[in-house]
């Protein structure tokens, strides 16, 4: 009961935090002008009404929903796995300053490699299948989460650690009661940074390997010069990204509603 109320409250808050809807005007004007100026059939710039028809065609052929669900499942599973592993390893590294100094340069080097570049490696090692897709997504999402967690665990306020010492907390309790709660905002921030990366990498794998998903659908439509389907899927992906980001923002707000320290996130 209390939790449903919290949901509603935070949904309301996050809706209130959205920028005013009249800000959509430039986009609406652009699409409207496109629709009006593009009268005939165009192979390159089909009018927005055709985009909708293209999507309907795809959905009628029964290829849209499997692709959408394949992409969504990869994304969610990848994020959950990356969050679990990244948080665990990050905490472990962060708690031991010597360890973090020793493997810091290695981690920095691994992180410097752009996530898309590991896709060909994964293809070579794992072949063209779902497992490879998931591995790549996890590897891409794990760095921001891991590094954010470990640096937050290193910077837990010394006063809090003194509290743990005063109460003679065991190592497990110290982790559970002091360190974990103080790094949760950083973990969430890491996931938020990882979100767009995982979307990009998932789509890229699908485009490169034609493993089932929206990316594969899109590149297939392009190869067949189904321009209206390409644009329709582009809009769909945009909405998908928007939805995923906003759902996570609400989730984060609910989870952090009683966390005292506010994390500065303006520069990521």
């Amino acid at each position, binding site marked *: 009961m209390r939790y449903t109320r919290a949901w509603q409250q935070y949904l309301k808050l996050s809706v209130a935090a959205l920028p005013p809807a009249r800000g959509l005007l430039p986009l609406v004007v652009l699409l409207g002008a496109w629709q009006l100026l593009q009268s005939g059939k165009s192979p390159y710039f089909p009018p927005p009404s055709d985009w909708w028809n293209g999507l309907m065609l795809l959905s009628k052929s029964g290829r849209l929903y499997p692709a959408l669900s394949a992409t969504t499942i990869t994304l969610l599973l990848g994020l959950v796995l990356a969050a679990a592993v990244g948080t665990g390893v990050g905490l472990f590294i962060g708690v031991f300053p010597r360890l973090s100094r020793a493997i810091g340069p290695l981690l920095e080097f691994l992180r*410097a490699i752009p996530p898309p*570049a590991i896709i060909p490696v994964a293809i070579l*090692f794992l072949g063209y299948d779902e497992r490879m897709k998931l591995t790549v997504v996890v590897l891409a999402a794990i760095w921001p989460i891991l590094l954010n967690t470990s640096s937050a665990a290193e910077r837990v306020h010394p006063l809090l650690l003194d509290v743990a010492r005063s109460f003679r907390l065991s190592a497990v309790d110290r982790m559970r009661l002091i360190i974990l709660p103080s790094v949760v905002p950083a973990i969430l921030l890491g996931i938020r940074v990882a979100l767009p990366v995982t979307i990009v990498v998932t789509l890229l794998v699908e485009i490169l390997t034609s493993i089932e998903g929206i*990316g594969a659908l899109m590149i297939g439509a392009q190869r067949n010069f189904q321009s209206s389907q390409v644009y329709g899927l582009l809009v769909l992906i945009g909405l998908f990204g928007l939805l995923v980001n906003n759902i996570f923002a609400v989730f984060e707000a609910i989870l952090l509603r009683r966390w005292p320290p506010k994390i500065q996130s303006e520069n990521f």
Partner: protein
Amino acid sequence: MDKGRLIARINWPGTTVLVFGGLAWEAAVRSGLLEYEYLPAPSAIALGWGELAKEGILGSDIAHTLISVAIGWAAAMVLGIPLGFLLGLSATARRYCLASIEVLRPMPGVAFAPVGLLLFGFSLKTEMVVTILPVLWPVLVNTMGGITGIHQRLYDVGRTFRLSRKDTILSIILPAAMPPIVVGARISLGLALVLAVVAEMVGNPEGLGYGIVREQQALQPDRMFAYIVTVGFIGIVLNAGMLAVAEALLPTSRQLRGEP
């Protein structure tokens, strides 16, 4: 900086781990402990890199990727900073644009690859279609945020000195918004490299991104890894370069932001 301090600043345990990790990898592959068909030893990667460099492909690939990064990033700066200024200065512009930006911002760059391919085929133009829009957002949003985040008291100072609108912008807004703009420019640069590589993998068969895919399809893992290491290295160099430029441009910003 004198030599002693430089030596003391090097992270010795970190360097040791890096070196030993490399040696262990080499030993594991050579002794057959790690037996993957496609896992080359670090020495093989270095040899592959040398091969590529000697054949002259690596140089031209690096040049192509760097040029694409430069074009994409420059376009994002030229568009993003003025637009960010406009949105930061005018509340009306913000009211009528912000929602559109929030809708477009999470659009993943790769999704534009099929559209680019449709319009321009495999070309540099397709690469730019993929690169420019996502690279635009960090610098635009940071410029806007930098301006809207300026403390009211700074404007009060301007009013006390009876600064004109132009002087307020030049001597109050611009310096105060500079640090976030530079941060945005740095994030954009890193993103530009990633997206250029992505675009080369799917939309423009040239440059480092295509090199990775090409060597993977040719089953030449040593050369593929050589390309990947090169991309990572360029990323580190670009980031360090931007940091150095930022520090030269804004010597005081570190203290202002309370960083050590």
